[in-house]
């Protein structure tokens, strides 16, 4: 019997390796990708505490199939060498309205509206637990790209409207796949807030205490309704009861409200996950006592312009301090063992996320804690531990490939893989051609100095200390260098074109690579490339200093 069970287990295992497809195909024959992608020689951050130097991992069907110092490479594998590069799990943001259209504001009427606009729902329009993100969701590839660039692979999104806002969904930011593949959980959580719905003009509640009283009454009524006591149908209370076992997320934008939310939860035996304000450091003892996990924005106040002493007089000490203290918030939460995740909500993910994160690290947040707040803690909070936020067998193949330590300002984020789909952000096979070169063309000697980022190098060319006009472009490892003639009386140009081998050819010895030299004749008032009349191709040597 035991043996039979074992065999069954093996079969189940085999099935779960690849599920059967059931979508008809009319534009060709069915194809099936059974390839593995194997990454080798990588520095793998399995989770915030575990590091594999020179490790390997394999990906198939969007999942990681194995990871370790050395793994078996299956026959049908594409092998990618990541020597010198680091691999991190992609980040997770638990608070967003990604892919959700802005809720429509109710039209204004005359005077306040006291009754609900809807029928068949709760008596208060601002209680909207039946709202489900998934029926409003449309993948927004432009917005997704911003998340990709910041390193995120999964977000929890919701309709940010109302006091009880309904269910959120967990969605992978996978480019080029169908919605069915992206949705990881269509009902991952239920959201609350202190703000009324914009879709109704119903007056009540007009205050924070009114909001809190309304939420309390909703809990009481939902419980009462669940026992079949109401004569009427209430779709809102039914939804509220259905959502009660989901992760409950309470959004707030100030410290006092965070503590108020927790107090409410305590009264009904609910532990909310709380969207914080970034000011948690101001009342850490109470924050810790709340036992909540916080979703903390990475928003830090800008410095004030205090050049005008008169205006500066209007600046409160509170505002000035906040600028000075807020970047240390995450460090203080971490030191006090308050669990938290990080959200890009309220900042520009593409522009400010990494610089603000590095700032938090400069203010004392450990890199491990920062990584945990972006990977394992949000995964655990949303019930996806071991599936998200780690590079582990069976987890989604959501990972980042970087040029080095993520927390280094100079580090480049090359690729963000989500569900095994590659999103290239920067070409990682780019050869770094920066350096100083001696350039000989037609017996003339130039000094070529290439500086800047590997992907966007800049050139400066000199001949006997006088500067030569130049323009450098470098794309797909093709270098294109345009030089103006050293003889300033002539309007001649020299164009050098070269394919730079990848990976980099730098070594101890002097290296050179081939270039085509094309001499251009007169440049008139027309685009350069059309001006080529005669070209002579010669080989030159560029010596690397």
């Amino acid at each position: 019997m035991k043996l039979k069970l074992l065999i069954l287990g093996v079969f189940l295992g085999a099935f779960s390796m690849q599920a059967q497809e059931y979508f008809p195909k009319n534009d060709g024959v069915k194809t099936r990708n059974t390839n593995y992608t194997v990454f080798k020689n990588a520095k793998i951050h399995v989770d915030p505490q575990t590091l594999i130097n020179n490790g390997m991992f394999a990906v198939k069907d969007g999942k990681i199939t194995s990871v370790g110092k050395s793994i078996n490479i299956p026959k049908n594998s594409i092998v990618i060498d990541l020597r010198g590069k680091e691999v991190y799990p992609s980040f997770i943001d638990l608070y967003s309205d990604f892919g959700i259209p802005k809720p429509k504001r109710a039209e204004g009427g005359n005077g306040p509206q006291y009754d609900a606009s809807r029928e068949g729902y709760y008596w208060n329009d601002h209680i909207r637990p039946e709202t489900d993100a998934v029926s409003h969701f449309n993948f927004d590839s432009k917005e997704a790209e911003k998340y990709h660039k910041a390193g995120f692979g999964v977000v929890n999104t919701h309709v940010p409207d109302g006091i009880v806002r309904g269910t959120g969904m967990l969605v992978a930011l996978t480019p080029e796949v169908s919605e069915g593949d992206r949705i990881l959980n269509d009902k991952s959580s239920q959201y609350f807030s202190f703000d009324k719905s914009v879709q109704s003009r119903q007056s009540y509640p007009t205050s924070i205490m009114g909001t809190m009283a309304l939420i309390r009454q909703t809990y009481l009524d939902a419980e009462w309704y669940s026992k079949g006591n109401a004569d009427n149908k209430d779709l809102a209370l039914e939804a509220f009861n259905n959502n009660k076992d989901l992760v409950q997320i309470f959004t707030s934008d100030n410290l006092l409200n965070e503590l108020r939310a927790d107090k409410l939860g305590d009264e009904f035996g609910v532990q909310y996950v709380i969207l914080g304000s970034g000011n948690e450091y101001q009342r850490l003892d109470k924050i810790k006592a709340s036992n909540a996990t916080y979703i903390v924005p990475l928003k830090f106040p800008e410095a004030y312009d205090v050049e005008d002493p008169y205006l500066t007089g209007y600046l409160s000490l509170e505002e000035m301090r906040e600028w000075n203290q807020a970047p240390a918030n995450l460090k203080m939460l971490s030191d006090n063992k308050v669990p938290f995740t990080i959200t890009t909500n309220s900042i520009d993910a593409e522009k400010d996320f990494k610089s603000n994160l590095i700032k938090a690290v400069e203010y004392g947040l450990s890199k491990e804690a920062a990584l945990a707040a972006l990977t394992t803690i949000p995964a655990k909070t949303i019930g996806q531990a071991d599936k998200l936020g780690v590079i582990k067998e069976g987890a989604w193949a959501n990972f980042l490939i970087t040029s080095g330590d993520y927390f280094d300002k100079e580090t480049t984020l090359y690729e963000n893989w989500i569900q095994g789909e590659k999103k290239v952000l920067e070409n990682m096979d780019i050869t770094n051609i920066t350096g100083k070169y001696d350039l000989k063309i037609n017996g003339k000697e130039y000094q070529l100095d290439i500086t800047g980022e590997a992907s966007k190098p800049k050139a400066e060319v000199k001949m006997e200390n006088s500067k030569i006009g130049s323009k450098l472009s470098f794309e797909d490892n093709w270098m294109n260098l345009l030089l103006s003639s050293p003889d300033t009386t002539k309007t001649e140009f020299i164009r050098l074109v070269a394919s730079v081998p990848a990976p980099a050819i730098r070594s101890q010895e002097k290296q050179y690579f081939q270039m085509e030299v094309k001499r251009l004749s007169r440049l008139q008032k027309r685009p350069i490339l059309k001006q080529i009349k005669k070209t002579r191709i010669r080989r030159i040597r560029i010596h690397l200093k």
Partner: protein
Amino acid sequence: MPVTYPNIAYGFKDKPKQENILFKNATVWTSEEEGVLENTDVLVKNGEISRIGQDLNAGGAQVVDATGKHLTAGIIDEHSHLAASDINEAGHNSSAEVNMEDVVDPTDIGIYRDLAGGVTTIQLLHGSANPIGGRSAILKLKWGESAEDLIFEQAPPFIKFALGENVKQSNWSGNRFPQTRMGVEQVFVDYFSQARAYETEKNKGGEDFRKDLEMETLVEILNGERFVTSHSYIQSEINMLMKVAEQFDFNINTFTHILEGYKVADKMKEHGVGASTFSDWWAYKYEVNDAIPYNASIMNDVGITVAINSDDGEMSRRLNQEAAKSVKYGGMSEEDAWKMVTINPAKLLHVDDLVGSIKTGKQADLVLWNNHPLSIYAKPEKTMIEGVVYFDIERDEQMRKQIREERNQLIGQMLKAKNNGVKTQPVTKKEKQHVHCDLLEEVQ
């Protein structure tokens, strides 16, 4: 920069601790039968008033020489809107389900200013937007503590009612019931009738009983378990509310504002209601045209428990002077005038067994004044709550110096940041709101 509690100017880096203090040789205003005691010592131990007498032994307590100084109980403000994030729930004409304890803001600088004016306890009231307002928060002004730690736990529950212009919304075009003073009466009758019916249903104890937070609160009022303090101006409405209460067999505890109280003081006495009024603040709207500065004295003479309140964060910090005005208007004795901001409001809030006077065994909520407390020259030197000195005039001087230094340091850092090319934001002028009970929006 270190975090302070609260994290604004005048916040504490280290929260002050409870101290045992012997005030030596003070002029003690007891607010009790003993009256004002000259050259008397008061010993504070473990947050309580331990002994009052002559030549007391310090027994390890810190000795404060109070020669030429006046020691009083902390001032109690029966009507305040300080330390609140919100004042009115104006979405319904009855909001008995809301609780001001939910919206206490412990970071309001008004708390510290009140302490500097000798105030130690306030009743944070709901606003006057609705006939039936919200539940009160009775607070001890423990500057630096969190919202929940400000709440005066032993104080009984209260609720704010309101009458007059604000509730019938005649100052703006409303479409809400009630629109008239007759309608206001019907709101009360209607809700209390509902509450009676609710209670009957509740007592049946059926499985299908629906708990309603608003009705629960109203039932508490009917059963004398929650006290009503009602915003009131006009005599006809004062009479009306007392009659409604009598019809439902309970008492109104306090009329607040009560500017026409002098007209119906005998009826109020008969009903057993107290009064909490302004000294001489009127003429801000039609229904306060009949107010007179003799109001407090007249009601006091009739035998009503009278308190002077502020309804205003600025007036709150000089309530000693407000009380003093009744000495001029109506010839009230100094001791009685002083009682109007100490033991009388304590009685109105049913905490007179704990605070409001200097009596052995009471909580040590004390103020040491540099001068006669009814004088305009009087300033608190120390304000203490339960033996913790939350305001100290010398510490205040040091804090001012530290604040100047910290500002300079931060300005220096910001200028440096700007010179280093960091993006800056312009300074905008923000004016702090002056909060009264007619504020409908969220407190800024």
